[in-house]
């Protein structure tokens, strides 16, 4: 509905191009071609796939849903999806939530966080504490985790109003180190070296069921993220990421919307952390180290900033690498260069990252742009999803 609303002012070229700069990467990514927005919109409006086209698209959708829903549950599938595979799938979904959380900060607000392991860890231990020590339910734990994530993000966001750009990245790095060494060392909360038990909720104790629970949370986060970008707040964030002073002169409350981005990101990270804790069932503080924070940033950027689907795929990919998911291809590498399977992720991942950022500035989101548009019923356009302008101001500096 909102797309039809936006096409109306297409008669006035100025208004249309303004609308398109506000949302360059939504579903109708093709119609914000700079010069001729009205014509491009009309072209897309007239394009209808043929009967065969509809069939092919429907088949692609069914295949995708089958892959996400049926294969992990071992329903209608020839594969034997084992325990390690389902754990991999759960990790992928949780990492996707964390990636979306980081995307809100880096992509929408232009604030680089190198302490995101603290955001996630606080959520994880909050939920584990609520469930194990207070004896309250998992659902309450998730809410508390999201709340704690939001509150600590708000505090850090307050700092970001004064300390901007790369300097803020340093503050977040110091914050992560501080959380890792100070907060997560309080053994009453984190259970010390041995970790803290975090039971799964009744009915979701099985891996398969827990996977669907995480998937439901991912859908919730995706929906919230989508609503955020479509709202006034999302457009305000876009404007102030480009230039906070100009945004302020248009009456955008820079302070309020920066803090909003932090709160949203902290909430997502808290949810991701809670799911992570209950996935592992015993959560140890040692995993929330700086390397994890780097991997979070890397997977988000490789996925493609401001590109929801790209971030999800990138995060899932790096979760797979981290959990030893490269073992299928690992046999080949072990024979050729002697790289054992358990090291495939940490050795190959960074090189993939370097290749992606030097050759594909839009990340995975750029790579899958044409397929995504095609599946949404548009013409197959090889150039869909490419970055339209050189983005010089990803981080306020």
């Amino acid at each position, binding site marked *: 509905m909102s797309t039809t609303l936006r096409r109306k002012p297409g008669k006035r070229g100025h208004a249309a191009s303004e609308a398109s700069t506000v949302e360059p990467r939504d579903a109708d990514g093709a119609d914000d071609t700079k010069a001729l927005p009205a014509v491009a919109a009309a072209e897309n409006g007239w394009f209808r796939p043929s009967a065969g086209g509809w069939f092919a698209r429907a088949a692609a959708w069914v295949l995708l849903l089958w892959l996400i829903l049926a294969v992990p549950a071992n329903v209608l599938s020839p594969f034997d999806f084992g325990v390690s595979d389902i754990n991999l799938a759960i990790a992928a979904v949780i990492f996707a939530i964390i990636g979306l959380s980081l995307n809100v900060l*880096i992509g929408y607000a232009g604030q*680089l966080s190198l302490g995101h392991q603290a955001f996630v860890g606080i959520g994880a231990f909050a939920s584990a504490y609520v469930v194990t020590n207070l004896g309250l339910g998992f659902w309450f734990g998730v809410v508390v985790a999201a709340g704690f994530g939001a509150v600590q993000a708000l505090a850090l966001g307050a*700092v970001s109003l*004064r*300390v901007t*750009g*790369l*300097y803020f*990245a*340093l*503050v977040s*790095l*110091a*914050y992560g*180190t*501080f959380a*890792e*060494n*100070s*907060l997560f*060392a*309080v053994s009453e909360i984190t259970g010390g070296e041995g970790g803290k038990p975090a039971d799964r909720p009744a009915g979701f104790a099985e891996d398969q069921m827990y996977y669907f629970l995480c998937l439901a949370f991912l859908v919730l986060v995706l929906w919230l993220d989508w609503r955020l970008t479509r709202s006034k707040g999302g457009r305000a964030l876009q404007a102030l990421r480009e230039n906070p002073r100009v945004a302020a002169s248009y009456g955008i409350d820079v302070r309020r919307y920066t803090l909003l981005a932090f709160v949203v990101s902290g909430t997502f990270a808290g949810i991701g952390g809670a799911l992570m804790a209950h996935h592992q069932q015993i959560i140890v503080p040692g995993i929330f*180290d*700086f*390397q994890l924070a*780097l*991997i979070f*940033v*890397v997977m988000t*950027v490789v996925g493609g900033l401001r590109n929801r689907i790209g971030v999800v795929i990138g995060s899932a990919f790096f979760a797979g690498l981290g959990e030893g998911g490269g073992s299928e291809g690992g046999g080949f590498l072990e024979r050729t260069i002697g*790289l*054992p399977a358990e*090291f495939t*992720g*940490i*050795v*190959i*991942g*960074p*090189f993939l*990252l*370097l290749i992606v*950022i*030097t050759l594909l*500035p839009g990340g995975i989101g750029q790579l899958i742009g044409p397929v995504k548009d095609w599946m949404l019923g548009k013409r197959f356009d090889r150039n869909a999803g490419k970055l339209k302008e*050189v*983005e*010089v*101001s*990803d*981080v306020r*500096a």
Partner: protein
Amino acid sequence: MIDEIGAALVIGVLTGSVYSMVALGIVLVYRASRVFNFAQTEFGTTGLFAAFVAVELWGWHYAFGVLFGLAAAVAMGLATERLIIRPLRDSSRVTLLVGTAGVALAAIGIQFWQNNAQPIRQMPRMIEGVAGEPFGTPVTHQQVITLLVLLAVAVGLALFFRSPTGLAVQAAQQEATASELVGISVRRVSMLTWGIAAFLGGLAGVLSGPNLTFTAGFLTFGAGAALLQGFMAAVLAGMRSMPGAVLGGLVVGVVEQLGSLTLFDGVDGSRALFLFLFLLGVLLLRPQGVFVREKATV
């Protein structure tokens, strides 16, 4: 109490000299490429591993081993400049930063892999033994050597930046286009700067490594973590002053060491807490840096 503070000062300055070397490299790279180089300490760890392999596994003489380590660090720095920084010079700063973080992660991954058989290693010291015990804390010869090398490096860099080549480097960093016009190759200057920075990182690695046992990622998040501290020292220097970076490293070392006074025994991770509060204080009160004369333009 007095003894304890004195000891904290001594240890702080000695560990701070490693931070100073890291900070010098960070400031140099920032001036040349406008990037926060997260691979700076990995140049050090890589150099340390290379030196270790040469000395312990191949049985080279210690001096040649150290030289080999430094050469490995410089080679890694030049490769980073050529393969990552130059192709990305027009990208946003977050992409550049992620690029250097990727270099660091790649190095750490390879270290984990190659070092799998025995994850914890010990590099022999240049001179074994304790040099003295000021305020009751033993200070090793290695630590004294590290401080002396830092002073030598500081003097060396000061002289270098007064030589014609050094002036060309400074000119290219201040005004790239104008220096191209007077015949300075900005590309070569960039290579040179990254080479020097990697050399400094390598020095930090081979000098601080023998004090402790080391693992993959030793200088980035391992036992000898110096990345955050190096950045803090660079912030104190306003990201541009070289003497400021040296002084900043020593100050950060002392501040961090104050966290280990018995007074704060009840606080978990008090050193990290001190660093965080200190960085926050500096950035909120004097974001342009402390040990720098004019206002910085970040």
